[in-house]
């Protein structure tokens, strides 16, 4: 525990309380993180499909009207972001930035960028007048970050530790 936090009794057992809470559903905090990240990753894939449909691509594979695709895109994004919050809390405030090997280093670096890319994307969406290529590039970058994070964490957990809740 960080010395500053040790001096604050209310915060001192945040880590164990978080673990206890997650373990009411999952076998361990890491298992919970792996499954929440998997949910976010699946929704990120939905984001790519619906965004492609809105940009006039994949119309044969994603037979949705534009308004439906937009609605699914927005809600899948919101839910994906919500699913990442416990993962963010665990990764950033409990485990921290580490580089003991290539997998963990890649995960730490990609994870640091995730919310930065989300912030940039939200600004581009809200403020009109950006060049046509900006939004797909940012959206694609976000999907790439999500994919990197999932491959270097959840997939590792499911293949090396256990595939279960």
């Amino acid at each position, binding site marked *: 525990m960080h010395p500053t936090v040790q001096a604050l009794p209310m915060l001192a057992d945040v*880590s164990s309380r978080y*673990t206890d809470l997650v373990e009411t559903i999952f076998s361990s905090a890491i298992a919970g993180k792996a499954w929440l990240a998997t949910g976010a990753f699946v929704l990120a894939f939905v984001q790519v499909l619906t965004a492609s449909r809105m940009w006039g691509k994949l119309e044969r594979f994603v037979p949705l009207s534009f308004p439906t695709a937009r609605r699914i895109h927005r809600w899948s994004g919101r839910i994906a972001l919500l699913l990442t919050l416990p993962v963010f809390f665990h990764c950033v405030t*409990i485990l921290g930035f580490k580089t003991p090997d290539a997998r963990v280093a890649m995960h730490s670096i990609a994870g*640091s960028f995730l919310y930065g890319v989300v*912030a*940039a994307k939200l600004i581009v969406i809200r403020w009109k007048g950006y*060049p046509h290529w900006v939004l797909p590039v940012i959206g694609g970058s976000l999907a790439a970050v999500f994919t990197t994070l999932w491959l270097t964490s959840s997939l590792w957990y499911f293949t*090396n*530790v*256990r595939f279960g809740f």
Partner: protein
Amino acid sequence: MARLVVPALALVVVTAAVLGLARWHPFSPTVPAATLNVFEGDPVRGASVFAASCAGCHGADGTGGVGPALRDSGINGAKVIVVVGTGQGAMPAGLVSGQDAADVAAHVASIAK
């Protein structure tokens, strides 16, 4: 192009904030010495927990793999509980906890002698 400065700035600022918080990681776990004796480990049950959660990296018989060998390593149960609780190297903290951690520690201690 000048408008791209704003999202680029947001990217840099938010990333830097997350990176700073991750470097600080204020809630990183520790295992107080007092908790080491809370659970009494069952090495037989620990073997099945080990097979489910540890063998992928440390090998089914504890002779190592991606993770270091534990068999004949001389590591004791208290050290195992601390490492499992706080993480070490590529192994994240808290892969198993509570009674599972105590049982795994008892199993590892039994094969590490």
